[in-house]
């Protein structure tokens, strides 16, 4: 188990290293010059050269990359400005270390992700399980039609329609604002409601379809037949023998989806104007703030990779048929 965990973490670190290298490479092949960006509009060629020297941009790319990695594990300085551990770069446009930006944006993304996840898990899985148990009924067909509709509507359409109907036409909700949960719980809830519903509509459809498939599959297994043959009540058969194996793949997908969302719901945050990690990425892309883009990519990849590891471990806990030592 411990050996497996160590191996898994090493693989995760390797993936992050490659993601980091690729992101880095892309931006150093890019036409934009970060020194030019840092210097601003009124800038002399001498000043640009000076900045390039300060930032180490005149060094070979591998050396710059090594210094970037060094910054992550030990912190570094950018032309005299300290960027403490774990330094993910320095945004010259805002004069803030990238990790500070990320940390300040994370609560918004986390609020969106966790709330939406709770909503879609509850609605999607229960609708899917119910559909599987009543396979062929009108409920099954209606739920599956709704699920297909849900996964087919692009998120920005859902988001904009929600905002148009609820805010512009009906006026039952205000435009979302970035308010902390503790600052003003009511406004926080009002602001989060639309992003939650928009995201949940998309994901609940996928989860309903997935859980329906899995439950139907599990109900056809031999161990379910055995349980029924033993004379167990149907409710017990479903709860203890069918749901448990059926939920394992759902946990897997859920872990990865939640991990991905914590790294920023780019489109949702942009449409609702909520300043989360995704909005940070979108804004950085619009203003070509390369250090921020690299930082967000790495940050989001980190969440995905960690979620993968967590999911693999959970798998072993949930499914008694899986033993990790052999893997």
């Amino acid at each position, binding site marked *: 188990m411990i050996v497996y965990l160590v191996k898994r973490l090493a693989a995760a670190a390797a993936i992050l290293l490659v993601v980091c290298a690729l992101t880095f490479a892309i931006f150093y092949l890019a036409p934009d010059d970060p020194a030019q960006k840092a210097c601003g509009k009124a800038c002399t060629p001498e000043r640009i050269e000076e900045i390039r020297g300060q930032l180490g941009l005149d060094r070979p790319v591998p050396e710059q990359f090594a210094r970037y990695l060094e910054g992550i594990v030990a912190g570094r300085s950018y032309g005299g400005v300290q960027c403490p551990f774990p330094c993910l770069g320095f945004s010259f446009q805002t004069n803030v270390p990238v990790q500070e930006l990320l940390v300040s944006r994370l609560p918004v993304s986390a609020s969106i992700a966790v709330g939406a996840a709770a909503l879609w898990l509850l609605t999607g899985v229960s609708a899917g399980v119910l559909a599987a148990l009543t396979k062929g009924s009108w409920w099954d067909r209606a739920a599956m039609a709704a699920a297909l509709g849900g996964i087919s509507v692009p998120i920005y359409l859902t988001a904009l329609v929600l905002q148009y109907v609820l805010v512009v036409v009906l006026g039952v909700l205000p435009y979302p604002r970035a308010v902390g949960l503790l600052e003003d719980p009511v406004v926080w809830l009002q602001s989060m409601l639309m992003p939650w519903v928009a995201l949940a509509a998309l994901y609940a459809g996928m989860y309903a379809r997935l859980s329906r498939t899995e439950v139907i599959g599990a109900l056809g297994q031999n161990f379910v037949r055995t349980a029924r043959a033993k004379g167990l009540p149907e409710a017990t058969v479903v709860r203890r023998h069918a749901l448990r194996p059926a939920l394992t793949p759902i946990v897997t997908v859920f872990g990865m989806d939640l991990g991905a969302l914590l790294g920023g719901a*780019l489109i949702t945050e942009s449409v609702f104007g909520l300043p989360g990690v995704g909005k940070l990425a979108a804004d950085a892309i619009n203003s070509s703030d390369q250090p921020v883009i690299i930082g967000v990519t790495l940050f989001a990849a980190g969440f995905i990779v960690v979620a993968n590891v967590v999911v693999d471990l959970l798998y072993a806990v949930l499914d008694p048929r899986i033993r990790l030592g052999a893997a």
Partner: protein
Amino acid sequence: MRPAPRATPPPETADPETVPVPEPARAVVPEGKDAADRGARGRSARARAFAGRFAGNRPALAGAVVIAVLVTMALAAPLVTALTGQSPYAFHPEAVDPAMGGLPRGGWGGISAEHPLGVEPGSGRDVLARVVWGARVSLLISLLATLLSTAIGTVLGLVAGFTGGWTDMAIGRLMDLLMSFPSLIFMIALMSVAPDGNRELMLVAVLGLFGWPYVGRIVRGQAMALAGREFVEAARVLGASRRQILFREILPNLRAPVMVVATLSIPGYIATEAGLSFLGVGVRPPTPSWGQMIASAVPWYAADPVYFLVPGLFLLAAVLAFNLVGDAL
């Protein structure tokens, strides 16, 4: 978040990873006339079974009809704009009201006999013309991306699953890596530094690059299962080369699962292309694509919802139609 709605195959058609694999379509040994006849009959039976699955499935049939209409519309885009006499690029300042900040005259997004789907606020460009030309861009990009990702995924998955060992590990790791990328952010980053050349081709390349592992994973699993089957063994004993076994024995058996994955990936690419264009890194104006039109509708959506709904509904129809058909396969 994920780049596109992932469609989980419905239970009736079974998971693509476990689709029952038909017997080899063709053997390496030269077939007699008898065998060829049997092959032909087998194929028509399969075609009938295929049609039968559709006939009983009204939603899938509706999806197929919608796809046919959209594709015809895209192909006939020059014809449509010739008939209405509207160019997708021509400005119509007389159709918008500068006193109202450039909102289309007459309400309802400026729908009139001349502009059946209204005009773009601000510029007054004809929405119908932009939607049909946008269909071309959106559908072409997603189809090409599907072809690209399916081709790469099939070949690499086949090689990985059949060869095993070191090759399998290398390809497997590459797929793991690509799948654990925050692909949307990365696609955006890549597109944002991409040179302003052919944005459409860039989109195809980027979508294909991040899409092929999903095909490759399934093909790899199937190829591994098939590699141990008797008919492969038989072909090997008969002296078939590796290439012959891969492409003439194993590949034909993968047609069904590959078709399903490919069909289900089209709506994903349509939505992702629209998403990237929506975020401003995909197709750039004045070239119309559905996502780009929706993006340009955002500043106006409260005052002119029609302009936002028209491309939105086309996009929704396309994604839904491909999902319906993919589900039925």
